[in-house]
Protein backbone atom coordinates (compact mmCIF):
# COMPACT_ATOMS: atom_id res chain seq x y z
CA UNK A 1 0.00 0.00 0.00
CA UNK A 2 1.53 3.27 -1.11
CA UNK A 3 -0.11 6.29 0.45
CA UNK A 4 1.25 8.51 -2.33
CA UNK A 5 -0.46 6.49 -5.06
CA UNK A 6 -3.66 6.31 -2.98
CA UNK A 7 -3.64 10.09 -2.62
CA UNK A 8 -2.96 10.64 -6.33
CA UNK A 9 -6.06 8.67 -7.33
CA UNK A 10 -8.21 10.14 -4.59
CA UNK A 11 -7.32 13.74 -5.41
CA UNK A 12 -8.02 13.24 -9.09
CA UNK A 13 -11.41 11.75 -8.28
CA UNK A 14 -12.22 14.61 -5.89
CA UNK A 15 -11.41 17.16 -8.56
CA UNK A 16 -13.59 15.33 -11.05
CA UNK A 17 -16.50 15.43 -8.62
CA UNK A 18 -16.21 19.09 -7.64
CA UNK A 19 -15.76 20.23 -11.23
CA UNK A 20 -18.69 18.28 -12.62
CA UNK A 21 -21.05 21.18 -11.86
CA UNK A 22 -24.22 19.52 -13.07
CA UNK A 23 -23.77 16.42 -10.91
CA UNK A 24 -22.57 18.49 -7.98
CA UNK A 25 -25.60 20.77 -8.12
CA UNK A 26 -27.84 17.73 -8.29
CA UNK A 27 -26.21 16.27 -5.19
CA UNK A 28 -27.07 19.42 -3.23
CA UNK A 29 -30.26 20.60 -4.81
CA UNK A 30 -32.17 17.33 -4.96
CA UNK A 31 -32.27 16.64 -1.20
CA UNK A 32 -32.91 20.29 -0.37
CA UNK A 33 -35.81 20.37 -2.81
CA UNK A 34 -37.30 17.20 -1.35
CA UNK A 35 -36.99 18.39 2.23
CA UNK A 36 -38.33 21.84 1.34
CA UNK A 37 -41.23 20.36 -0.59
CA UNK A 38 -42.29 18.14 2.27
CA UNK A 39 -41.84 20.88 4.83
CA UNK A 40 -44.36 22.97 2.88
CA UNK A 41 -46.71 20.10 2.07
CA UNK A 42 -46.96 18.92 5.67
CA UNK A 43 -46.82 22.27 7.40
CA UNK A 44 -50.50 22.08 8.45
CA UNK A 45 -51.83 19.71 11.05
CA UNK A 46 -52.52 17.12 8.44
CA UNK A 47 -55.78 15.18 8.47
CA UNK A 48 -58.55 16.46 10.72
CA UNK A 49 -57.98 13.81 13.32
CA UNK A 50 -56.94 14.16 16.90
CA UNK A 51 -54.81 11.39 18.24
CA UNK A 52 -55.51 10.27 21.78
CA UNK A 53 -53.54 7.54 23.45
CA UNK A 54 -55.54 5.41 25.85
CA UNK A 55 -54.23 2.95 28.42
CA UNK A 56 -55.95 -0.34 29.34
CA UNK A 57 -58.10 0.21 26.28
CA UNK A 58 -60.15 -3.01 26.61
CA UNK A 59 -60.57 -3.23 30.39
CA UNK A 60 -62.68 -0.26 31.34
CA UNK A 61 -66.16 0.93 30.81
CA UNK A 62 -66.51 2.95 27.64
CA UNK A 63 -66.28 6.69 28.22
CA UNK A 64 -68.62 9.10 26.53
CA UNK A 65 -65.49 10.79 25.31
CA UNK A 66 -64.68 7.74 23.21
CA UNK A 67 -67.84 8.11 21.18
CA UNK A 68 -66.83 11.49 19.75
CA UNK A 69 -66.10 11.27 16.05
CA UNK A 70 -62.87 12.46 14.37
CA UNK A 71 -60.78 11.39 17.27
CA UNK A 72 -58.48 8.45 16.73
CA UNK A 73 -58.00 6.40 19.89
CA UNK A 74 -54.69 4.58 20.00
CA UNK A 75 -54.19 1.89 22.65
CA UNK A 76 -50.88 2.34 24.48
CA UNK A 77 -49.12 -0.21 26.66
CA UNK A 78 -46.17 1.77 28.02
CA UNK A 79 -47.25 4.87 29.91
CA UNK A 80 -43.85 6.64 29.98
CA UNK A 81 -43.32 6.14 26.23
CA UNK A 82 -46.73 7.57 25.61
CA UNK A 83 -46.03 10.61 27.79
CA UNK A 84 -42.93 11.32 25.70
CA UNK A 85 -45.16 11.19 22.63
CA UNK A 86 -47.39 13.83 24.17
CA UNK A 87 -44.33 15.97 24.87
CA UNK A 88 -43.40 15.75 21.20
CA UNK A 89 -46.93 16.37 19.91
CA UNK A 90 -47.08 12.90 18.38
CA UNK A 91 -50.12 12.30 20.60
CA UNK A 92 -52.50 15.16 21.27
CA UNK A 93 -53.67 13.63 24.53
CA UNK A 94 -53.14 10.60 26.67
CA UNK A 95 -55.81 9.29 29.04
CA UNK A 96 -55.72 6.60 31.67
CA UNK A 97 -59.34 5.67 32.58
CA UNK A 98 -58.22 3.42 35.46
CA UNK A 99 -56.40 6.21 37.32
CA UNK A 100 -58.68 8.97 36.01
CA UNK A 101 -55.69 10.93 34.70
CA UNK A 102 -55.04 12.65 31.41
CA UNK A 103 -51.95 14.29 29.93
CA UNK A 104 -51.83 17.12 27.44
CA UNK A 105 -49.10 19.36 26.14
CA UNK A 106 -49.35 22.95 27.41
CA UNK A 107 -48.36 24.37 24.06
CA UNK A 108 -50.74 22.26 21.98
CA UNK A 109 -54.00 23.85 20.77
CA UNK A 110 -55.35 20.35 20.06
CA UNK A 111 -54.67 19.41 23.69
CA UNK A 112 -56.70 22.41 24.89
CA UNK A 113 -59.66 21.48 22.70
CA UNK A 114 -59.54 17.81 23.71
CA UNK A 115 -59.42 18.81 27.41
CA UNK A 116 -62.62 20.81 26.95
CA UNK A 117 -64.24 17.89 25.12
CA UNK A 118 -63.23 15.40 27.80
CA UNK A 119 -64.48 17.61 30.63
CA UNK A 120 -67.75 18.04 28.77
CA UNK A 121 -68.39 14.31 28.34
CA UNK A 122 -66.87 12.61 31.37
CA UNK A 123 -66.20 13.76 34.91
CA UNK A 124 -63.43 13.37 37.42
CA UNK A 125 -60.32 13.36 35.24
CA UNK A 126 -57.19 14.96 36.65
CA UNK A 127 -55.09 17.06 34.34
CA UNK A 128 -51.32 16.38 34.04
CA UNK A 129 -49.63 18.99 31.89
CA UNK A 130 -46.38 18.25 30.10
CA UNK A 131 -44.17 20.50 28.06
CA UNK A 132 -42.23 20.06 24.88
CA UNK A 133 -42.09 21.14 21.32
CA UNK A 134 -43.66 19.17 18.54
CA UNK A 135 -41.95 16.73 16.23
CA UNK A 136 -42.94 17.71 12.74
CA UNK A 137 -42.92 15.39 9.77
CA UNK A 138 -39.79 17.14 8.44
CA UNK A 139 -37.98 16.46 11.74
CA UNK A 140 -38.70 12.83 11.18
CA UNK A 141 -38.04 12.99 7.44
CA UNK A 142 -34.64 14.70 7.45
CA UNK A 143 -32.76 11.55 8.52
CA UNK A 144 -34.48 9.57 5.79
CA UNK A 145 -33.75 12.10 3.05
CA UNK A 146 -30.10 12.51 4.03
CA UNK A 147 -29.69 8.74 4.15
CA UNK A 148 -31.44 8.31 0.82
CA UNK A 149 -29.17 10.89 -0.79
CA UNK A 150 -26.24 9.06 0.75
CA UNK A 151 -27.46 5.82 -0.78
CA UNK A 152 -27.92 7.15 -4.32
CA UNK A 153 -24.64 9.01 -4.26
CA UNK A 154 -22.74 6.03 -2.86
CA UNK A 155 -24.23 3.40 -5.14
CA UNK A 156 -24.16 5.40 -8.35
CA UNK A 157 -21.12 7.55 -7.58
CA UNK A 158 -18.96 4.51 -6.91
CA UNK A 159 -20.67 1.60 -8.63
CA UNK A 160 -21.61 3.33 -11.84
CA UNK A 161 -18.36 5.29 -12.12
CA UNK A 162 -16.17 2.21 -11.73
CA UNK A 163 -18.16 0.36 -14.38
CA UNK A 164 -17.71 3.38 -16.67
CA UNK A 165 -13.97 3.45 -15.96
CA UNK A 166 -13.78 -0.24 -16.76
CA UNK A 167 -15.71 0.15 -19.99
CA UNK A 168 -13.77 3.13 -21.34
CA UNK A 169 -10.34 1.73 -20.53
CA UNK A 170 -9.46 3.99 -17.60
CA UNK A 171 -9.12 0.98 -15.27
CA UNK A 172 -6.88 -0.76 -17.78
CA UNK A 173 -4.63 2.29 -17.85
CA UNK A 174 -4.39 2.29 -14.04
CA UNK A 175 -3.70 -1.44 -14.08
CA UNK A 176 -0.66 -0.77 -16.28
CA UNK A 177 0.85 1.35 -13.49
CA UNK A 178 2.17 0.13 -10.14
CA UNK A 179 -1.17 1.03 -8.49
CA UNK A 180 -2.74 -2.01 -6.82
CA UNK A 181 -6.44 -2.87 -6.85
CA UNK A 182 -6.55 -2.23 -3.11
CA UNK A 183 -5.05 1.25 -3.44
CA UNK A 184 -7.42 2.09 -6.25
CA UNK A 185 -10.52 0.88 -4.40
CA UNK A 186 -9.69 2.49 -1.07
CA UNK A 187 -9.00 5.77 -2.87
CA UNK A 188 -12.42 5.61 -4.49
CA UNK A 189 -14.06 4.83 -1.16
CA UNK A 190 -12.21 7.60 0.68
CA UNK A 191 -12.94 10.16 -1.99
CA UNK A 192 -16.64 9.35 -2.05
CA UNK A 193 -16.89 9.13 1.74
CA UNK A 194 -15.33 12.54 2.17
CA UNK A 195 -17.66 14.19 -0.27
CA UNK A 196 -20.75 12.33 0.88
CA UNK A 197 -20.22 13.53 4.41
CA UNK A 198 -19.47 17.10 3.38
CA UNK A 199 -22.51 17.21 1.10
CA UNK A 200 -24.74 15.72 3.82
CA UNK A 201 -23.42 18.16 6.42
CA UNK A 202 -24.02 21.11 4.10
CA UNK A 203 -27.52 19.98 3.19
CA UNK A 204 -28.29 19.50 6.87
CA UNK A 205 -26.96 22.95 7.79
CA UNK A 206 -28.75 24.72 4.94
CA UNK A 207 -32.13 23.15 5.64
CA UNK A 208 -31.65 23.45 9.40
CA UNK A 209 -31.26 27.23 9.05
CA UNK A 210 -34.78 27.44 7.69
CA UNK A 211 -36.55 24.53 9.34
CA UNK A 212 -34.73 24.32 12.67
CA UNK A 213 -34.82 20.56 13.14
CA UNK A 214 -35.33 18.90 16.51
CA UNK A 215 -32.05 17.39 17.59
CA UNK A 216 -32.05 15.61 20.94
CA UNK A 217 -28.85 13.58 20.46
CA UNK A 218 -25.22 14.33 19.76
CA UNK A 219 -24.03 15.61 16.39
CA UNK A 220 -20.91 13.46 16.69
CA UNK A 221 -23.04 10.33 17.09
CA UNK A 222 -25.07 11.35 14.06
CA UNK A 223 -21.88 11.79 12.05
CA UNK A 224 -20.71 8.33 13.12
CA UNK A 225 -23.96 6.72 11.99
CA UNK A 226 -23.84 8.48 8.63
CA UNK A 227 -20.14 7.66 8.15
CA UNK A 228 -20.71 3.96 8.85
CA UNK A 229 -23.76 4.02 6.61
CA UNK A 230 -21.84 5.73 3.81
CA UNK A 231 -19.00 3.20 4.01
CA UNK A 232 -21.50 0.34 3.95
CA UNK A 233 -23.37 1.69 0.94
CA UNK A 234 -20.15 2.50 -0.92
CA UNK A 235 -19.04 -1.09 -0.31
CA UNK A 236 -22.31 -2.28 -1.76
CA UNK A 237 -21.64 -0.09 -4.81
CA UNK A 238 -18.18 -1.65 -5.12
CA UNK A 239 -19.68 -5.11 -4.93
CA UNK A 240 -22.03 -4.34 -7.82
CA UNK A 241 -19.18 -2.81 -9.82
CA UNK A 242 -16.66 -5.56 -9.07
CA UNK A 243 -16.74 -7.05 -12.51
CA UNK A 244 -19.56 -5.61 -14.60
CA UNK A 245 -18.52 -3.92 -17.83
CA UNK A 246 -21.94 -2.80 -19.02
CA UNK A 247 -23.26 0.53 -17.81
CA UNK A 248 -26.82 -0.47 -18.70
CA UNK A 249 -26.67 -3.63 -16.61
CA UNK A 250 -25.00 -1.80 -13.74
CA UNK A 251 -27.63 0.94 -13.90
CA UNK A 252 -30.41 -1.63 -13.83
CA UNK A 253 -28.92 -3.50 -10.91
CA UNK A 254 -28.29 -0.32 -8.94
CA UNK A 255 -31.89 0.74 -9.47
CA UNK A 256 -33.12 -2.70 -8.51
CA UNK A 257 -31.29 -2.33 -5.22
CA UNK A 258 -31.88 1.32 -4.45
CA UNK A 259 -35.62 1.58 -5.12
CA UNK A 260 -36.74 -1.19 -2.75
CA UNK A 261 -34.39 0.29 -0.16
CA UNK A 262 -35.96 3.68 -0.62
CA UNK A 263 -39.43 2.29 0.10
CA UNK A 264 -38.71 -0.44 2.61
CA UNK A 265 -36.13 1.35 4.74
CA UNK A 266 -38.56 3.92 6.06
CA UNK A 267 -37.34 7.00 4.21
CA UNK A 268 -40.84 8.41 3.73
CA UNK A 269 -43.04 6.57 6.18
CA UNK A 270 -42.68 4.35 9.19
CA UNK A 271 -43.01 0.63 8.65
CA UNK A 272 -44.95 0.23 11.90
CA UNK A 273 -48.08 -1.76 11.23
CA UNK A 274 -47.16 -3.12 7.80
CA UNK A 275 -46.74 -6.83 7.12
CA UNK A 276 -44.20 -8.23 9.65
CA UNK A 277 -42.58 -10.08 6.80
CA UNK A 278 -41.69 -6.74 5.17
CA UNK A 279 -40.36 -5.43 8.46
CA UNK A 280 -38.03 -8.44 8.65
CA UNK A 281 -36.97 -7.96 5.05
CA UNK A 282 -36.14 -4.33 5.79
CA UNK A 283 -33.66 -5.51 8.43
CA UNK A 284 -31.33 -6.89 5.77
CA UNK A 285 -31.21 -3.52 3.98
CA UNK A 286 -28.33 -1.31 5.11
CA UNK A 287 -30.34 1.85 4.61
CA UNK A 288 -32.84 0.72 7.28
CA UNK A 289 -30.10 0.70 9.90
CA UNK A 290 -28.75 4.10 8.87
CA UNK A 291 -32.20 5.68 9.08
CA UNK A 292 -33.24 3.92 12.30
CA UNK A 293 -29.97 4.91 13.95
CA UNK A 294 -30.10 8.52 12.78
CA UNK A 295 -33.75 8.95 13.81
CA UNK A 296 -33.12 7.45 17.20
CA UNK A 297 -30.35 9.99 17.76
CA UNK A 298 -32.21 13.01 16.44
CA UNK A 299 -35.72 12.35 17.76
CA UNK A 300 -35.21 10.13 20.80
CA UNK A 301 -31.85 11.49 21.84
CA UNK A 302 -30.35 8.00 21.76
CA UNK A 303 -26.64 7.46 22.35
CA UNK A 304 -24.37 5.09 20.49
CA UNK A 305 -24.98 2.27 22.98
CA UNK A 306 -28.72 2.34 22.32
CA UNK A 307 -28.29 2.05 18.57
CA UNK A 308 -25.48 -0.51 18.82
CA UNK A 309 -27.52 -3.21 16.99
CA UNK A 310 -27.85 -0.86 14.00
CA UNK A 311 -24.16 0.01 14.08
CA UNK A 312 -23.13 -3.65 14.34
CA UNK A 313 -25.41 -4.55 11.43
CA UNK A 314 -23.77 -1.85 9.30
CA UNK A 315 -20.26 -2.99 10.21
CA UNK A 316 -21.09 -6.63 9.50
CA UNK A 317 -22.69 -5.84 6.14
CA UNK A 318 -19.72 -3.65 5.19
CA UNK A 319 -17.33 -6.51 5.94
CA UNK A 320 -19.34 -8.95 3.84
CA UNK A 321 -19.66 -6.55 0.90
CA UNK A 322 -15.97 -5.62 0.95
CA UNK A 323 -14.73 -9.19 1.17
CA UNK A 324 -16.86 -10.31 -1.76
CA UNK A 325 -16.02 -7.18 -3.76
CA UNK A 326 -12.27 -7.62 -3.22
CA UNK A 327 -12.43 -11.28 -4.24
CA UNK A 328 -14.40 -10.71 -7.41
CA UNK A 329 -12.86 -7.40 -8.53
CA UNK A 330 -11.60 -7.33 -12.13
CA UNK A 331 -9.74 -4.52 -13.83
CA UNK A 332 -11.16 -5.56 -17.18
Amino acid sequence: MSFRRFLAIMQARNKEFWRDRAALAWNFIFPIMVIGGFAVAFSGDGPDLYKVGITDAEEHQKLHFETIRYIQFIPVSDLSDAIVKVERHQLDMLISPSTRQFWINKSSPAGYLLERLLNGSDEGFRREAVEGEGIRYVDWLISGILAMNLMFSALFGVGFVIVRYRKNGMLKRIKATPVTAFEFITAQVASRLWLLLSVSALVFLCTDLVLDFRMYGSYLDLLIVFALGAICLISLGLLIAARLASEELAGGLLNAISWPMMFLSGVWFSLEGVNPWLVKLAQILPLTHVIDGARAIMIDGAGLMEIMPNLMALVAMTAVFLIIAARTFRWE
Partner: protein
Amino acid sequence: MSPFLQVDNLTRHYQGVKAVDGISFAIERGRCFGLLGPNGAGKTTTVEMLEGINEPTSGTILYQGRPLGRRFRDEAGIMFQTTALQDYITVHETLKMFQQMYPRTIPLPDLIESCSLGEFLDRDTRKLSGGQRQRLLLAIALVNDPEVIFLDEPTTGLDPQARRNFWELVQRIKQQGKSIVLTTHYMEEAYRLCDDIIIMDHGQIIAQGTPDALLAKHFAEVVLQLPAADFPASCPELEMQVSGDLVEILSSDLNHTIRRLIELKVSLAGLRIRQHTLEDLFLALTGRELRT
Protein backbone atom coordinates in the same frame (compact mmCIF):
# COMPACT_ATOMS: atom_id res chain seq x y z
CA MET B 1 23.16 -12.54 -20.79
CA SER B 2 19.44 -13.02 -21.28
CA PRO B 3 17.63 -10.93 -23.89
CA PHE B 4 15.81 -7.78 -22.84
CA LEU B 5 12.39 -9.31 -23.52
CA GLN B 6 12.13 -12.98 -24.38
CA VAL B 7 8.90 -14.55 -25.61
CA ASP B 8 8.52 -18.32 -25.91
CA ASN B 9 5.66 -20.23 -27.44
CA LEU B 10 3.09 -17.60 -26.44
CA THR B 11 -0.55 -18.55 -26.91
CA ARG B 12 -3.81 -16.80 -26.12
CA HIS B 13 -7.20 -18.35 -26.76
CA TYR B 14 -10.51 -16.50 -26.55
CA GLN B 15 -13.46 -18.89 -26.37
CA GLY B 16 -11.86 -21.40 -28.71
CA VAL B 17 -10.40 -18.78 -31.05
CA LYS B 18 -6.60 -18.78 -31.18
CA ALA B 19 -5.91 -15.04 -31.15
CA VAL B 20 -2.21 -15.73 -30.66
CA ASP B 21 -0.97 -19.15 -31.65
CA GLY B 22 2.41 -20.19 -30.25
CA ILE B 23 4.73 -17.34 -31.20
CA SER B 24 8.34 -16.87 -30.05
CA PHE B 25 10.70 -13.94 -30.49
CA ALA B 26 13.23 -11.84 -28.62
CA ILE B 27 13.48 -8.08 -28.29
CA GLU B 28 16.90 -6.51 -27.83
CA ARG B 29 17.63 -3.54 -25.60
CA GLY B 30 17.66 -0.15 -27.28
CA ARG B 31 15.91 -1.31 -30.44
CA CYS B 32 12.56 -0.38 -31.85
CA PHE B 33 10.63 -3.58 -32.37
CA GLY B 34 7.58 -3.58 -34.64
CA LEU B 35 4.61 -5.92 -34.73
CA LEU B 36 2.89 -5.59 -38.07
CA GLY B 37 -0.21 -7.11 -39.46
CA PRO B 38 -3.77 -6.43 -40.47
CA ASN B 39 -6.55 -5.79 -37.97
CA GLY B 40 -7.32 -9.00 -36.09
CA ALA B 41 -3.88 -10.51 -36.69
CA GLY B 42 -3.21 -10.75 -32.94
CA LYS B 43 -0.91 -7.72 -32.58
CA THR B 44 -2.79 -6.04 -29.75
CA THR B 45 -3.34 -9.32 -27.88
CA THR B 46 0.40 -10.03 -28.16
CA VAL B 47 1.45 -6.59 -27.03
CA GLU B 48 -1.02 -6.65 -24.12
CA MET B 49 0.48 -9.91 -22.92
CA LEU B 50 3.93 -8.31 -23.15
CA GLU B 51 2.59 -5.38 -21.12
CA GLY B 52 1.30 -7.73 -18.44
CA ILE B 53 -2.30 -6.59 -18.99
CA ASN B 54 -3.50 -9.81 -20.56
CA GLU B 55 -2.70 -13.28 -19.19
CA PRO B 56 -1.29 -15.73 -21.74
CA THR B 57 -3.12 -19.04 -22.11
CA SER B 58 0.32 -20.65 -22.25
CA GLY B 59 3.93 -19.72 -22.95
CA THR B 60 6.43 -17.55 -21.14
CA ILE B 61 7.51 -13.92 -21.20
CA LEU B 62 10.77 -12.95 -19.50
CA TYR B 63 11.81 -9.36 -18.86
CA GLN B 64 15.57 -9.21 -18.33
CA GLY B 65 15.49 -12.91 -17.48
CA ARG B 66 12.60 -12.74 -14.98
CA PRO B 67 8.83 -13.08 -15.24
CA LEU B 68 6.90 -9.79 -15.49
CA GLY B 69 6.47 -8.34 -12.02
CA ARG B 70 6.88 -5.34 -9.81
CA ARG B 71 10.08 -4.19 -11.46
CA PHE B 72 8.57 -4.43 -14.94
CA ARG B 73 5.58 -2.30 -13.81
CA ASP B 74 7.94 0.38 -12.58
CA GLU B 75 10.10 0.33 -15.70
CA ALA B 76 7.55 -0.03 -18.49
CA GLY B 77 5.77 2.85 -20.19
CA ILE B 78 2.54 1.94 -21.91
CA MET B 79 0.39 3.71 -24.46
CA PHE B 80 -2.78 1.82 -25.28
CA GLN B 81 -4.67 1.99 -28.52
CA THR B 82 -7.58 3.65 -26.74
CA THR B 83 -7.45 5.10 -23.25
CA ALA B 84 -10.03 7.18 -21.49
CA LEU B 85 -8.57 9.82 -19.24
CA GLN B 86 -10.23 11.03 -16.12
CA ASP B 87 -12.74 13.76 -16.95
CA TYR B 88 -12.64 17.29 -15.54
CA ILE B 89 -8.92 17.35 -14.85
CA THR B 90 -6.34 19.24 -16.88
CA VAL B 91 -3.38 17.94 -18.86
CA HIS B 92 -1.02 19.08 -16.13
CA GLU B 93 -3.06 17.46 -13.35
CA THR B 94 -3.26 14.24 -15.34
CA LEU B 95 0.52 14.13 -15.68
CA LYS B 96 0.91 14.85 -11.99
CA MET B 97 -1.47 12.05 -11.05
CA PHE B 98 0.46 9.52 -13.10
CA GLN B 99 3.78 10.88 -11.86
CA GLN B 100 2.74 10.18 -8.26
CA MET B 101 2.16 6.53 -9.11
CA TYR B 102 5.81 5.77 -9.88
CA PRO B 103 8.91 5.59 -7.71
CA ARG B 104 11.19 7.06 -10.39
CA THR B 105 10.01 9.84 -12.68
CA ILE B 106 11.38 12.45 -15.04
CA PRO B 107 10.78 16.10 -14.16
CA LEU B 108 7.47 17.32 -15.59
CA PRO B 109 8.95 20.40 -17.33
CA ASP B 110 11.24 18.12 -19.37
CA LEU B 111 8.34 15.87 -20.26
CA ILE B 112 6.13 18.81 -21.23
CA GLU B 113 8.93 20.18 -23.38
CA SER B 114 9.76 16.91 -25.11
CA CYS B 115 6.15 16.06 -25.92
CA SER B 116 5.25 19.68 -26.82
CA LEU B 117 2.40 19.90 -24.32
CA GLY B 118 3.14 23.48 -23.27
CA GLU B 119 0.42 25.22 -25.24
CA PHE B 120 -2.50 23.21 -23.82
CA LEU B 121 -1.24 22.37 -20.35
CA ASP B 122 -4.27 23.80 -18.52
CA ARG B 123 -6.87 22.42 -20.87
CA ASP B 124 -9.45 19.86 -19.75
CA THR B 125 -8.42 16.50 -21.20
CA ARG B 126 -11.80 16.18 -22.89
CA LYS B 127 -11.07 19.18 -25.11
CA LEU B 128 -7.87 17.98 -26.80
CA SER B 129 -7.47 17.35 -30.52
CA GLY B 130 -6.49 13.88 -31.71
CA GLY B 131 -2.80 14.78 -32.05
CA GLN B 132 -2.68 16.58 -28.68
CA ARG B 133 -4.31 13.62 -27.01
CA GLN B 134 -1.81 11.16 -28.48
CA ARG B 135 1.05 13.40 -27.31
CA LEU B 136 -0.42 13.45 -23.80
CA LEU B 137 -0.84 9.67 -23.81
CA LEU B 138 2.77 9.34 -24.95
CA ALA B 139 3.85 11.69 -22.15
CA ILE B 140 1.98 9.50 -19.64
CA ALA B 141 3.82 6.48 -21.03
CA LEU B 142 7.11 8.33 -20.52
CA VAL B 143 6.41 9.78 -17.08
CA ASN B 144 8.29 7.03 -15.23
CA ASP B 145 11.41 7.37 -17.41
CA PRO B 146 10.77 3.83 -18.69
CA GLU B 147 13.30 1.33 -19.97
CA VAL B 148 10.81 0.02 -22.49
CA ILE B 149 7.90 1.81 -24.13
CA PHE B 150 4.90 0.07 -25.67
CA LEU B 151 3.05 1.95 -28.40
CA ASP B 152 -0.08 0.23 -29.71
CA GLU B 153 -1.08 1.75 -33.05
CA PRO B 154 -0.14 5.21 -31.80
CA THR B 155 -0.95 7.16 -34.97
CA THR B 156 -4.18 5.48 -36.04
CA GLY B 157 -6.71 8.16 -36.82
CA LEU B 158 -4.23 11.05 -36.92
CA ASP B 159 -3.89 13.34 -39.93
CA PRO B 160 -0.62 13.12 -41.90
CA GLN B 161 0.89 16.20 -40.27
CA ALA B 162 0.14 14.99 -36.72
CA ARG B 163 1.46 11.54 -37.67
CA ARG B 164 4.73 13.01 -38.89
CA ASN B 165 5.09 15.04 -35.67
CA PHE B 166 4.49 11.92 -33.65
CA TRP B 167 7.15 10.02 -35.58
CA GLU B 168 9.65 12.75 -34.73
CA LEU B 169 8.84 12.33 -31.05
CA VAL B 170 9.40 8.59 -31.28
CA GLN B 171 12.71 9.13 -33.12
CA ARG B 172 13.85 11.36 -30.25
CA ILE B 173 12.92 8.70 -27.71
CA LYS B 174 14.91 6.17 -29.71
CA GLN B 175 17.93 8.45 -29.62
CA GLN B 176 17.81 8.33 -25.82
CA GLY B 177 18.48 4.59 -26.05
CA LYS B 178 15.03 3.45 -24.93
CA SER B 179 13.61 0.17 -26.16
CA ILE B 180 10.34 0.52 -28.03
CA VAL B 181 7.69 -2.03 -28.93
CA LEU B 182 5.38 -0.68 -31.63
CA THR B 183 2.36 -2.16 -33.31
CA THR B 184 1.05 -0.61 -36.48
CA HIS B 185 -0.70 -1.35 -39.68
CA TYR B 186 0.99 1.55 -41.43
CA MET B 187 3.95 0.10 -43.30
CA GLU B 188 5.57 3.48 -43.75
CA GLU B 189 5.52 3.97 -40.00
CA ALA B 190 7.15 0.59 -39.43
CA TYR B 191 9.73 1.24 -42.09
CA ARG B 192 10.69 4.62 -40.67
CA LEU B 193 10.76 3.71 -37.00
CA CYS B 194 11.50 0.02 -36.54
CA ASP B 195 14.85 -1.71 -36.37
CA ASP B 196 13.31 -5.18 -36.24
CA ILE B 197 9.87 -6.30 -37.24
CA ILE B 198 7.69 -9.34 -37.15
CA ILE B 199 4.72 -9.65 -39.46
CA MET B 200 1.73 -11.45 -37.98
CA ASP B 201 -1.34 -12.94 -39.54
CA HIS B 202 -3.94 -15.22 -37.93
CA GLY B 203 -2.04 -15.21 -34.64
CA GLN B 204 1.19 -16.47 -36.13
CA ILE B 205 4.46 -14.93 -37.24
CA ILE B 206 4.79 -15.10 -41.00
CA ALA B 207 8.05 -13.16 -41.36
CA GLN B 208 10.66 -11.58 -39.14
CA GLY B 209 13.87 -9.56 -39.48
CA THR B 210 14.99 -5.99 -40.15
CA PRO B 211 12.75 -4.23 -42.67
CA ASP B 212 15.51 -4.00 -45.26
CA ALA B 213 16.60 -7.60 -44.81
CA LEU B 214 13.02 -8.77 -45.16
CA LEU B 215 12.56 -6.78 -48.34
CA ALA B 216 15.90 -7.96 -49.71
CA LYS B 217 15.03 -11.54 -48.88
CA HIS B 218 11.64 -11.52 -50.53
CA PHE B 219 12.35 -9.14 -53.36
CA ALA B 220 15.67 -9.74 -55.04
CA GLU B 221 15.07 -6.99 -57.57
CA VAL B 222 14.47 -3.27 -57.63
CA VAL B 223 12.43 -1.74 -60.40
CA LEU B 224 14.00 0.82 -62.77
CA GLN B 225 11.58 2.94 -64.74
CA LEU B 226 12.54 4.84 -67.89
CA PRO B 227 10.41 6.74 -70.40
CA ALA B 228 9.88 4.42 -73.37
CA ALA B 229 10.78 7.24 -75.79
CA ASP B 230 14.37 7.34 -74.44
CA PHE B 231 14.83 3.65 -75.02
CA PRO B 232 16.51 1.86 -77.94
CA ALA B 233 14.53 -0.78 -79.73
CA SER B 234 16.46 -3.74 -78.45
CA CYS B 235 18.73 -4.28 -75.49
CA PRO B 236 19.94 -7.76 -74.80
CA GLU B 237 20.59 -9.07 -71.29
CA LEU B 238 17.96 -6.86 -69.63
CA GLU B 239 14.77 -8.21 -68.17
CA MET B 240 12.26 -5.59 -69.18
CA GLN B 241 8.64 -4.96 -69.79
CA VAL B 242 6.76 -2.05 -71.30
CA SER B 243 3.88 -0.61 -69.41
CA GLY B 244 2.21 2.35 -71.12
CA ASP B 245 4.88 4.92 -71.97
CA LEU B 246 7.23 3.54 -69.32
CA VAL B 247 9.72 0.77 -69.56
CA GLU B 248 10.29 -1.17 -66.33
CA ILE B 249 13.50 -3.09 -65.84
CA LEU B 250 13.83 -5.57 -62.98
CA SER B 251 17.33 -5.55 -61.59
CA SER B 252 18.97 -7.73 -58.99
CA ASP B 253 22.24 -5.82 -59.34
CA LEU B 254 21.63 -2.12 -59.72
CA ASN B 255 25.30 -1.19 -60.44
CA HIS B 256 25.54 -3.71 -63.23
CA THR B 257 22.27 -2.67 -64.81
CA ILE B 258 23.09 1.03 -64.80
CA ARG B 259 26.57 0.38 -66.23
CA ARG B 260 24.89 -1.60 -68.97
CA LEU B 261 22.41 1.21 -69.69
CA ILE B 262 25.26 3.73 -69.96
CA GLU B 263 27.08 1.44 -72.38
CA LEU B 264 23.92 1.34 -74.45
CA LYS B 265 23.90 5.18 -74.37
CA VAL B 266 20.44 5.30 -72.89
CA SER B 267 19.64 8.71 -71.42
CA LEU B 268 19.22 8.37 -67.65
CA ALA B 269 17.62 11.81 -67.30
CA GLY B 270 14.16 10.30 -66.79
CA LEU B 271 15.30 7.37 -64.63
CA ARG B 272 13.32 6.46 -61.53
CA ILE B 273 13.98 3.61 -59.16
CA ARG B 274 11.11 2.16 -57.18
CA GLN B 275 11.74 0.13 -54.04
CA HIS B 276 9.43 -2.63 -53.04
CA THR B 277 7.54 -1.64 -49.92
CA LEU B 278 6.35 -3.57 -46.92
CA GLU B 279 2.90 -3.36 -48.47
CA ASP B 280 4.22 -5.34 -51.44
CA LEU B 281 5.82 -7.77 -49.00
CA PHE B 282 2.61 -8.34 -47.11
CA LEU B 283 0.75 -8.89 -50.35
CA ALA B 284 3.39 -11.35 -51.48
CA LEU B 285 3.29 -13.23 -48.17
CA THR B 286 -0.44 -13.51 -47.69
CA GLY B 287 -1.93 -12.79 -51.09
CA ARG B 288 -4.04 -10.13 -49.34
CA GLU B 289 -3.98 -6.38 -49.08
CA LEU B 290 -2.92 -5.24 -45.66
CA ARG B 291 -5.82 -3.04 -44.69
CA THR B 292 -8.71 -5.28 -45.54
